């Protein structure tokens, strides 16, 4: 025996289900361009058929279907591809950051060009060569002083710019740490909300999408490991220590330490001194560039050290020749013994390049340049030795980093090394970008919206809706026959 209004229920269920499916399709179309959005689908399932097996089972043919319902709204997302994308994105963040900074360093070094430091050095040697020929010529002496000033100023300037860049990057790192903390808080909140919703039995699709976007951003900043979730609660760790544990957050902090007169920075877990071991992400890149008092030293710190070594070697070798001593008498234009050629305007070890300067006595009076080895105004042998210093191998640097080379070659090798590091960073960044884009394509393939597909679905659900409405109509007409026409 069939219930009278049985058919209405089937039609009603169909209408609701198709409408709901259309809603989901509409949601997909509306969010076609939303970043991080995953395709959703209303999963339709036939509702429980009638009859259930039992003692009082009716004797007509069974089971009869009872219509359709939306079982769940499924979100299309591949966890594995997500994990891969985030892993490669960390490397991209690190290399991209290094690439930008190294390009900036190349720009401030400004080689090869006609305005770079190698040109200034070359002119310094040329000035000395002219002095060797014409030691009594006032013009030539003035030129030597001017070119020496140009050289020291170029060295000072380059060092200062490197220093500023380093400070800038440390500042940037501070900003990124705040970003990490803020993202972590947002993710924790979303964790909480998703957990509550899914405990109640629903799929928190859009919230999960939002959380995915935030985790993507976090992966670009720091090297995170995401562990399997427990009913919506994720744990995100940095090198084993949890940053986000469900809905609690342990923040990071950029802490300043001092060592003597120097300041240096570390990224630590807030309130402690434990370093957060960041192996990838933008923060790792920024730290690799700017860190000091570490082994191995940061990239900028290494270049600053090399510049210091160069300045010190220049200062020491030139003064060795120029300054008068018992074994090496030198005389200036007035027949007085020569003093220092280069001095430091302030005495700070480890910052020779910043404070290297020409002896102010020489700037005030170029006659005091000691070009002669005997008290005769026309002797330029000391100036000749100074000019020949260009081709002399000297020891630059100290300890394990000491090398034996000419001053010019040392500078060239530093520039070459800068070029190699920058080239590597550019190459790695480009490769990573390609890789990340490739994986993103796979992600899109699984989760992205294809408008053609959605529109085809739209048509599909619309037809079903129309048919269900028609069914309702037919049922209604049949009942009318029953009600109005039988027994009249």
């Amino acid at each position, binding site marked *: 025996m069939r219930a009278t209004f049985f058919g209405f229920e089937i039609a009603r269920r169909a209408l609701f289900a198709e409408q709901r499916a259309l809603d989901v399709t509409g949601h997909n179309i509306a969010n076609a361009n939303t970043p991080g959005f995953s395709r959703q689908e209303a999963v339709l399932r036939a509702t429980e058929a009638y009859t259930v097996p039992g003692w009082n089972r009716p004797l007509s043919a069974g089971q009869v279907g009872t219509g359709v319902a939306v079982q769940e709204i499924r979100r299309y997302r591949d966890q594995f591809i997500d994990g891969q994308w985030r892993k490669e994105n960390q490397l991209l963040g690190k290399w991209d950051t290094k690439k930008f900074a190294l390009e900036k360093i190349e720009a401030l070094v400004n080689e090869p060009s006609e305005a770079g430091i*190698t040109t200034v050095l070359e002119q310094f040697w040329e000035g000395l060569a002219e002095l060797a020929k014409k030691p009594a010529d006032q013009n030539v002496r003035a030129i030597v002083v001017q070119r020496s000033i140009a050289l020291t100023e170029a060295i000072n300037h380059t060092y200062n710019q490197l220093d500023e860049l380093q400070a800038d990057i440390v500042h940037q790192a501070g900003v990124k740490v705040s970003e990490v903390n803020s993202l972590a808080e947002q993710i924790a909140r979303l964790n909480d909300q998703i957990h509550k919703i899914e405990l109640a039995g629903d799929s928190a699709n859009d919230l999960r999408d939002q959380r995915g976007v935030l985790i993507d951003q976090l992966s670009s900043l720091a090297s995170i490991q995401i562990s399997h979730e427990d009913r919506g609660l994720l744990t995100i760790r940095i090198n084993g220590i949890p940053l986000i544990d469900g809905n609690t957050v342990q923040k990071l902090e950029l802490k300043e330490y001092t060592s003597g007169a120097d300041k240096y920075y570390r990224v630590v877990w807030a309130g402690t001194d434990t370093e957060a071991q960041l192996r990838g992400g933008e923060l790792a890149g920024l730290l690799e560039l700017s860190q000091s008092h570490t082994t191995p030293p940061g990239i900028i710190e290494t270049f600053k050290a090399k510049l210091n070594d160069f300045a010190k070697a220049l200062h020491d070798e030139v003064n060795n020749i120029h300054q008068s001593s018992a074994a090496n008498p030198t005389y200036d234009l007035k027949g007085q013994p020569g003093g220092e050629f280069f001095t430091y305007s302030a005495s700070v070890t480890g910052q020779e390049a910043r404070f290297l300067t020409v002896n102010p006595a020489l700037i005030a009076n170029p006659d005091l340049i000691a070009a002669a080895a005997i008290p005769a*105004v*026309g002797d330029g042998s000391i100036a000749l030795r100074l000019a020949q210093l260009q081709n002399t191998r000297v020891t630059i640097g100290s300890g394990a980093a000491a090398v034996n080379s000419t001053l010019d070659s040392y500078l060239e090798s530093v520039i070459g090394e800068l070029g*190699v590091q*920058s080239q590597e960073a550019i190459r790695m960044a480009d490769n990573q970008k390609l890789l990340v*884009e490739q994986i993103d394509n796979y992600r899109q*393939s699984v989760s992205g919206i*294809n408008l053609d597909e959605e529109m085809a679905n739209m048509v599909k659900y619309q037809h079903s809706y129309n048919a269900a409405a028609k069914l309702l109509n037919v049922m209604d007409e049949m009942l009318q026959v029953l009600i109005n026409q039988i027994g009249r």
Partner: protein
Amino acid sequence: MRVTSGMIINRMIMNLNRNLSRLAKVQNQMSTGKIVARPSDDPSLATQGIRLQRELSQTKQYQANANDAQSLLDLTDTALTQIENILQRAKELAVAGANGTNPQEAREAYAAEIDQLKEQLVQIGNTAVGGRYIFAGTNYTTPPFVLNNGAVDYAPGFTGEMVAKIPATGTQLSLQPNIAYEVGPNVTVPVNLTAAQVFNLWPSSTATLYDPPALPLNKSMFAVLENLSGYLRSGNTGKISGESLKDIDDQLDHILTLHADVGARQNRIAQTLSRLADAETNLTELLSKTTDIDLAEATIRYSNEQAVYQAALMTGAKIIQPTLADYLR
């Protein structure tokens, strides 16, 4: 594989960006004319370029030094020739004076001319170019000699030397070292002669302190001429023919030796200059080959990149436009 419109648009944008950055790089190369704009473009090429530039600058400096040396040596050469002429004239006068048949008045005339010749020697000794006295050694801002009432003396302020009357044999003079210019890496060439060398102002007992090329004689050139003048005025023909002629010959030989040495130096400088000119040409060529772009090749590359870029734009435009909505009623 399922393809979404987002994927297509993303890929198109990525590829356009890549094309554009390649295009920008070629355009930059063409406008600067250099292959390498930054060390990271090609580190080894960049450092090579810097090194070649440095070698070229050094070569040019050596050329300048060699040119300066050449002008100094040329001037010295001329001065020595003039001294030779004077000595020749003095010899003629000595021969004439030694001839007993000439009257004393003639000898007086000769003596007067010898005095004049001596003063000319002093002037030659004070030859200067550009404020630089070429025979003054390392005190080149002061002229070596002055004339005090016909007596030759060191100029006051000619430091390092004792101010003494010449010909005071037995007076020690301090060494006036040669001045040398650098014409190659650690290669120097001496560019001067000192007054003491030329006019023999050392006593022979200091021969061990002396620089080659010629050993000093017992008498200075001025002493020889002054003696001759004295003998002429006193009519001592025996001394003239016995001593003065020999002395003048010795001085002449001495000057000729020095002159030959200067000539040798001039040859060496000339060869050095020619070698440096070749080196400069070679280095310039090498530098250009290493660091400059081949404009023809770069232009072709540029057109290529442009064509690729335009093709990418065109196909991209065609593929992102049509959707199903265009075809559903």
